[in-house]
């Protein structure tokens, strides 16, 4: 979904943007330049984000004609249909999977980002490239490959069987953990990059100061490193949570009948049932849930920013 990965342009906290510059009163000329530079992005967002959102919202109120084409109208059936308990349980499952994915990604990505940022030395760029480049490959192809790795006779289960951890009935595919493994595999890089950026620009002398004050490694980590990289972690969480919530490929390839996610239902409505209006209504429901999450994130970063500004004074 194109809508979610937008960094907050004001805080600039999502992309690695380097240390904040001291504020100076910009000249009128500079202001004009910035306005022009913003224009393409603004137009892009207006056309492909706002306009599509409006279109989806309008479609949600429509009906279909006999050829299955969406017809605009004002019809609340699709909205009331969302009251169906089946949607609620699938939505809750998706939320649960997405949140778990975020937690696991955080746990997996932090050590990786930490090691590269603070101990990568001259290999830093190479290591980051090694993580990012595979993600240039088509998402679907990667997921297909992953499903091969996890399949009943795949290398992972074979290895686990040979050391006695798994037996012949152990399965990863068509289970909840299988789907979450797929989601983590698919999106973990979105966690590594912002964490790496945050760790990279962190002032290392803070850690040394913590040690000088007799903080053990753990204490230093939780009292110094973690708070200093909180924004990077928050950005990573959002970047992982949003696509994980809307994903349907993982549940399709790695899940069974009990692992359907909201993305699968939406995909069904558009591609199988040819019920675009209901698919749109479901999409809006998902967007609403995601918007609430996003709101929480924005409030959080705003507060952080304020705190920083106060601390700087």
């Amino acid at each position: 979904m194109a809508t979610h990965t937008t960094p907050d342009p004001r805080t600039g906290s999502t992309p690695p943007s380097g240390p904040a510059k001291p504020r100076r009163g910009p000249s009128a000329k500079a202001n004009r330049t910035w306005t022009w530079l913003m224009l393409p992005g603004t137009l892009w967002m207006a056309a492909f984000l706002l306009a599509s959102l409006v279109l989806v919202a309008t479609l949600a109120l429509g009906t279909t004609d006999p050829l299955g084409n969406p017809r605009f109208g004002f019809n609340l059936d699709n909205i009331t249909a969302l009251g169906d308990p089946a949607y609620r349980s699938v939505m809750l499952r998706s939320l649960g999977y997405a949140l778990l994915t975020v937690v696991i990604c955080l746990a997996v990505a932090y050590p990786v980002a930490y090691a590269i940022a603070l101990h990568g030395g001259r290999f830093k760029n190479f290591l980051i490239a090694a993580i990012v480049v595979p993600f240039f490959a088509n998402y679907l192809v990667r997921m297909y490959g992953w499903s091969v790795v996890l399949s009943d006779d795949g290398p992972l289960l074979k290895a686990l069987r040979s050391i006695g951890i798994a037996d012949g009935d152990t399965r990863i595919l068509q289970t909840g953990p299988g789907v979450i493994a797929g989601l983590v595999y698919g999106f973990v890089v979105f966690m590594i990059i912002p964490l790496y950026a945050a760790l990279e620009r962190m002032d290392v002398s803070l850690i040394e100061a913590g040690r000088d004050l007799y903080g053990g490694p753990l204490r230093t980590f939780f009292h110094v490193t973690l708070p200093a990289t909180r924004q990077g972690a928050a950005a990573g969480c959002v970047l992982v949570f949003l696509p994980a919530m809307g994903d349907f490929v993982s549940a399709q390839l790695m899940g069974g009948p009990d692992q359907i996610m909201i993305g699968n239902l939406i995909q069904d409505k558009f591609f199988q049932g040819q019920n675009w209006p209901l698919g749109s209504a479901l999409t809006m429901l998902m967007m609403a849930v995601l918007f609430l999450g996003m709101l929480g994130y924005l409030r959080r970063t705003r507060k952080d920013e304020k705190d920083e500004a106060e601390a700087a004074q």
Partner: protein
Amino acid sequence: MSPEAPPSPSPLPAAAHPSPAPLSRRSLLRTGAAATAGLGLGLTASGCGFLPADASVYGDTEAPIDVKVDGDLVYFNWADFVDPAVFAGFEKEYGVKVIQSNFDSMEGMVAKLNAGNRYDIIFPSAKWAQRLTAGHRLRRIDHSKLRNAESVFGHYPYFADPWYDAGSHYTVPRIVYKTGIGWRKDKIGDDLGGSWDDLWSAKAKGRVFVLDDRDEVLGFAALKLGLDLATEDEGDLGRIAETLRSLRPHLRGFSSDSYNNLLNGNAVMTQAWSGDMAAMLAQAEDPSALGFEIAKEGSPVNSDCYAIPSDARHPGTAMLFIDYMLRPENVKKNIEYIGYPMPVGGTEDTYAALVEPFPECLVSADDLKDDLYFRNGTAKGEQARDAAWTHVKAG
């Protein structure tokens, strides 16, 4: 995926592969296309037009077509559904080019038509042929101008006046197929019960797949319960959902990739299209390890046909192409290439030889019955079926 049609793997086969090899060219193409379309989800809406299905927009669809070369053939079908040698022969004989593009679902095909793409020949399933005809989107096909039409309509009278196209004015049937149960003989034995009940068999518990297809899944449960295949009745649909709920403990997944699921052992039993089973015979290391049965409660049947869109630029070439495709030697080549039987008199032996281990794949004139087809429902009925399907899938 179209609810009734896709005679082949779904866009996203829910399958695991012990090695990447079994992913056929056909399913890979379809997978990629679906992903491209699918990853946009809701936003795909912006890509398609909303033209009204109104005859006046599409001009006079009743004008007879001059059967002559009037340009290159713009062809639109499932990927890999015609023997390339047959294309080559057509290009050579008529001095034209075949410009191919492929769809991955009936919905996708119609969406492309609605977006204003112009094709000379398309291949809708029965249900979609009816919708397109009702929407005045097809040109009339005068059978008397096709030299080989007699081999279809003379031998399969069912198609002279099918439910989806009264008088067969707008379509010529191309392939027919049935839905049954495929299983691994080497894993659960040589014989099943010959009923849809077999999907509940203890021997296959936890290793059963059903197609990821609304009509097929609701349909087999309806047949098992003795209900109308395409029922729209809320009470019926409730019973169907209940029946399918009792199948869940046995079920490993919804997937239209029966082909890979059976071959790589993720499934020991799966609902399957007859054409996929025929394709497996050619692909399996040991075909005798596979079985295919048609349930005694009945098997859904379906057919795809040739049709010429009303805005086709080269309808004359399209007519020549249909006629060329109906020549017995070309029918035989295509049957062997795609594994589906075609309702063309004189080609039955070719197909019978191809599927000799699975005679259940054969579709005879007796199998073709109106009430074994998935039909178009009312708007309300479709919604009710949709809701039932959501319950079945979401559990």
